[in-house]
């Protein structure tokens, strides 16, 4: 995968499959300390302690269609490739959090990519999940919160075509300012 945003999309689908109601995504580009941080937290079903220990293996998955699960393994591999660090915490019945640190100037680090498309894809896929997305750089921060959007929309659904188009533009414009 060629964008951090695609890794994030993939990991967030784990949260959706875990029946999360709330999803928190944070991307921090810290140029001063040369660190990119990606943090994802959900309130889904969580994992047993034993399963968390082996979940970074590509041969561990909950799905029945195939016997490999690559999402978390890919993400962990990318952190290691970029002199970074990977961390996962999960509690059964409470939720899961995943953190990835990358060296920003590392030659193998791929671009953050199109986060607005990632968020919109997530909303389309799981319109009932509430998503908070925070993007922070040395210039400032931007927070997108589906709860706020829902408040304005009232009886209009979040996955309405025109609303989605608006959200996509809204996120990309606000991120562009911080780059």
């Amino acid at each position, binding site marked *: 995968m060629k964008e951090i945003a695609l890794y994030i999309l993939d990991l967030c689908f784990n949260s959706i499959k875990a029946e999360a109601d709330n999803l928190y995504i944070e991307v921090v580009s810290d140029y001063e300390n040369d660190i990119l941080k990606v943090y994802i937290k959900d309130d889904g079903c969580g994992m047993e302690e034993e399963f968390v220990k082996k979940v970074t293996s590509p041969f561990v998955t909950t799905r029945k*269609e195939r016997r490999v699960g690559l999402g978390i393994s890919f993400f962990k591999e990318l952190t290691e490739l970029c002199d970074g660090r990977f961390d996962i915490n999960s509690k059964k019945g409470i939720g899961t959090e995943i953190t990835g640190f990358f060296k920003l100037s590392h030659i193998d680090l791929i671009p953050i990519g199109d986060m607005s*498309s990632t968020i919109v894809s997530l909303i389309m896929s799981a319109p009932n999940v509430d998503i908070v997305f925070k993007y922070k750089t040395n210039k400032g921060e931007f927070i997108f919160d589906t709860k706020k959007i829902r408040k304005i929309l009232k009886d209009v659904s979040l*996955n*309405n*075509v025109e609303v*989605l188009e608006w959200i996509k533009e809204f996120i990309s414009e606000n991120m562009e300012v911080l780059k």
Partner: protein
Amino acid sequence: MKSLEELEKIRKETLDKINLRKERTGTRIAVGMATCGIAAGARPVMMAILDELSKRNIVDVIVVETGCIGMCKLEPLVDVYEPGKEKVTYAKVDEDKARQIVVEHVINGHPIKEWTIENYL
């Protein structure tokens, strides 16, 4: 810059539109979005479908994700569900194909047989 006032406007317009067309077609488009789908380009496909629907002012079609069905090498897979009709599955969809599927199949009602999964099995 997009503003929240604009969102309020979209809300009002959408409500008017929904009131105009009471009869919903209920067509559903599902894009394979597991790791295999995403790596093969499912996100741009989903965005292309959204863009095409928005350009043509189609508000009654729902776009959703679907998981991996074990045919990872044929991703991105796109399913079109129309009420009362059999599901049509398209394989190896890209942005251009996605746009044509929306226009030819979803809007005009003619499935594009050359691109369905049966051709790849």
